[in-house]
Each structure stands twice: as C-alpha cells, then as structure tokens.
C-alpha cells in the first residue's frame, strides 16, 4: 500500500487530531501546540486518566477520551512515543486534584517518556501514578528482556480504570483496578499484509502472497514467527491457543473476548474469526461474558487481527458494564 489519503506525511498527526476534535466538538478539545486531546469538561473532580502513545493506532488513543474512560490522550508521531513535555501538559490539564493515572504500554520509548513526564509533574506537586500494560503473549517475558508489549488489552485497562475513576475511587484504587486488568488480560496478533508509515518509502516488512506473520505488535514490526497462510479457523486456534496456555483458565471462567482488526481487515473477516473463537472457548468451557468485534487498537492499514481475552471476576464485570459515552462495538 503506497497510496495514502493524506496531505503531507509531516502533518498527519496534527491534521488527524483536528479532525477528531471536529467530530465531537461538544466533548473534546485539542491543547494548543500539543497533539493532546482532552475532555472539554476537564479537569473533573475525580482521578484523571491519561493514556497515549504513537499515532497510527486509531481509534486509540483519542477515541477513548470521554465519560467513563480517558480524560486525555497524548498522540506521538506515527508509531513514535510522545514526548514528556506533551504528556506533562496533558497531566496538568486534566488533574482535578485527586491525582492522575498514566496508562502506558510496555515499550521502552513509551515507558521512558511517560516516566520523565511523571517526574516533571511530581516535581510540581501533582499526584501521579502509572501502570504499564504488557498483554502480548507473543513476546517472551523474562527479567532479562524488555518484557511483553502492551497491545489491544490496553482498551480494557482504559475501560475498567475509567469506570473505577468515574465511580469516585482514589488514585491508589484506580491503579489497583488497572493492575487487576493487566494481570488478567492476554493478547496475540497476526498479519496478512504489513503497513507503511506515511513518511517511509516502504512497509516495515514484506510478505509473500502465501505468507503471514504471527505474533506481530502494533507498530508494523515483523512478528515473532513467519508461516504459510492458514485458514481463519486455524489462525484463531493458534492465537487463542497461545493465550489459553499462558494464563490459567478454568472450566466455567468468564471472559471478555475482543477480536480486534489491525486497520485494513474487513469486518467480515473479523466476524468469521469471532465465530471460531466462540467455538474454541465453548469447547474449553469458558463463557464469553462480553464480546467486542471491531477496530480498537490498529496499526495503520495493516491487514490482520489480534485476539484478546480478559478473565473476569465480579468487580471487573461491573466495571466493564459501567456506562461510558465511548462506543465499543459495531
């Protein structure tokens, strides 16, 4: 995919943010000089939630700014973590005095930039905490590595921490709820076709017409494994297989199931995959409490999908069901 519906690769992020804010003018605004989207009514008398990361993951992250979810989203350049000054600006804007929780995906760049911003905010006396989402089972987790990436499971962190904050919880409780999601959410992704960053000439990887990547991230990185293309059902079996062998699921467990398109995948294909996911979970005696099928955390026009399972308990179910003005499903 060489052609893009853009004006200038240099301006994609700012023009996109302007388009996002125009779409919900009564609810969102953009901070001057920063690619930061905040709730128009911020700061509110509650713990504020700030998320963000590189751009190219739309609707993440600005699409989750709203009642019951985020208070601000900080957009970096395409696939590039935002800088500390922008994050700091977001923190200052949404802090209503009850503190700010930063939701960070586990990438070296994201973690470092958000931590620098946190230091800056703390130095100004703002109460700040952060959680690091690392739901991608494709990547090996070890003390000696960067650890797992944060991918689509982040949406559940937004939703649940957002509901907790909306309910009036303290920063430490909101953080605890976010961490509960993080320890119970797992994702694995795959791609049939790569994506191309607007300012680059070539896609980040190339695949033959009979090849696919398993274990991809959300930045156009190649996956952990390249295989021949398989049928949708086999692919779902692989993704869910990795997830189910990573975290302990028992007969009767309830889960939220997310089938996430990577940006270029038609909904038709996501629903075909969703059908299989239900079959697999049914066979394992796992109950789908809530099912999300759409694009949630994308990678530009990459064709592929990720599957996420969040293991639920009573508290998580209630928070997942709590109202939000963000639409979470087609």
């Amino acid at each position, binding site marked *: 995919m060489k052609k893009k519906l853009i004006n200038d690769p240099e301006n994609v992020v700012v023009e996109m943010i302007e388009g996002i804010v125009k779409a919900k003018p009564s609810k969102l605004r953009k901070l001057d000089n920063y690619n930061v989207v905040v709730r128009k009514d911020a700061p509110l008398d509650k713990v504020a939630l700030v998320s963000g990361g590189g751009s190219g993951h739309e609707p993440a992250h600005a699409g989750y700014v709203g009642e019951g979810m985020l208070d601000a989203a900080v957009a970096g350049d395409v696939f*590039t973590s935002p800088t500390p*000054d922008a994050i700091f600006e977001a923190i200052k804007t949404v802090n209503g005095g009850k503190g700010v929780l930063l939701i960070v995906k586990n990438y070296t760049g994201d973690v470092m930039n958000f931590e620098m911003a946190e230091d800056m905010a703390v130095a100004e006396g703002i109460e700040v905490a952060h959680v690091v989402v690392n739901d991608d089972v494709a990547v*090996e987790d070890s003390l000696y*590595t*960067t650890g797992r990436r944060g991918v689509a499971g982040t949406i559940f962190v937004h939703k649940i921490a957002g509901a907790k904050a909306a309910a009036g919880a303290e920063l430490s409780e909101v953080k605890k709820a976010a961490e509960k999601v993080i320890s119970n959410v797992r994702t694995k992704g795959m791609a049939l076709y790569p994506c191309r960053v607007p300012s680059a000439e*070539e896609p980040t990887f190339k695949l033959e017409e009979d090849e696919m990547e398993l274990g991809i991230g959300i930045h*156009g*990185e190649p996956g952990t494994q390249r295989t021949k293309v398989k049928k949708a059902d086999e692919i779902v079996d692989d993704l869910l297989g990795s997830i189910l062998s990573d975290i302990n699921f028992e007969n009767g467990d309830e889960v939220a199931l997310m089938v996430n398109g990577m940006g270029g995948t038609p909904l038709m294909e996501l629903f075909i995959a969703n059908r299989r996911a239900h079959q697999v979970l049914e066979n394992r005696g796992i109950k789908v409490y809530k099912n999300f099928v759409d694009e949630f955390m994308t990678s530009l026009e990459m064709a592929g999908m990720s599957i996420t399972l969040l293991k639920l308990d009573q508290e998580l179910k209630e928070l997942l069901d709590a109202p939000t003005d963000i639409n979470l499903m087609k």
Partner: protein
Amino acid sequence: MKVTSEKIKDIFIKIADVLIENKNYLTELDAAIGDADHGINMARGFKKVKEKIEDDSFKNNSDLVKTVAMTLISTVGGASGPLYGTAFLNISKIIPDSDFDIDSFIKIGETVIEGIQKLGKAQRGEKTMLDTIIPAVNALRESKVKGLSLERALEECKKAAEEGMKATIPLLATKGRASYLGERSKGHQDPGATSSYLIIKVIVDELISEME
C-alpha cells in the same frame, strides 16, 4: 585543547546534517528489527536542534548543550529521544567551558553511559546504542593508560565505536523494540548503535580537524 563555543555549535550543526542525510539509512535499519522510524525520529529532532541553535547565542557550553538536550527530549520521542536527551543533559552538567583534555572526554563518555543506563537499564551486548558508546569510552580510557596523544585517543575512540556498531549485527536483541523479534533480531545492525557511531564520528573528525 581549546574548543570554542562557536566550534561546539558547529559540531552540533554538522551532527544534525549527517543525521538528516542518513535519515533513510537509519530508518531502513530500524525497519529490519524495529518500527522503521529511528532515522525519522533523529532527523526530526536534530532539524529542530539546528533551528534552535543556529541563530541564537548561548551563555556558555553548558547552556548550549542543555538547549540541545531539551530540544531532543521534546521532539524525538520514541526510545531514542529520552536516551539521547538525557545523555546530552548529563553532558551539559559537566562540559568544560573551553579547555578539553583526555579526562574531559572520558568524563563526558561516562556521564553519557550513566544517563542511558539509568533510563534504559541495558548492558553492553544487548544490541543497543550502548554497544557503540561503551567501547568508544573504553578506548579513551585505554588510550590514556597507554599515554597516547589526544588526537590518537580520539581516533581510537572512533574506531572502537565503529567496531562496536558493526559488532551489533550478530547480536540477539534483549532491550528495545528489536527484542520482540527474538532470534530474528540477529543479522541486523542496530539503528541506535549506528546513529551513535555517526555522532561520535562527527565529533572526532571535527575535533581533529580543529587540531590541525
């Protein structure tokens, strides 16, 4: 040796030009094992650095380097932004105002490594910019022990940086984005190690030409 503030500004502008020139090269390296933006990130940051320092004057070297550091922190993003930003921020705290000897360069190198490691928690051999920087600083230390001239020491430093950069090719990445690839990260030169080499090369070449 004496290095004027003007010269240091010059060096930064040359660094910027070289990184902008190598934008596609660095991005291609990052495409192989990362997310294809390292060149874009560095070029964006150093373009801004150039704008910031070109027509401005600074109280002293520290002030100049601090401006560079803050500009990088607020424009590069990604992993390399905070890492290079912190490295230069650390340099700004100790950079001499005009007289440089082998010890000043060793001290600069050490504070760079310290800053990068504090933030990124990587060791040598993990396929990062440190694989260029650590051997380069070691070469300075060894040159001092051997009693080499400053010129020779700087040459050794550059050589070690280049070797370190090339030595990242067979390594398995365990830090940064390339680590997600596991075994597939082998066989590619690390983009950050490459940009570090390019920076060291400009500094060394410029300082040596200043000596002549």
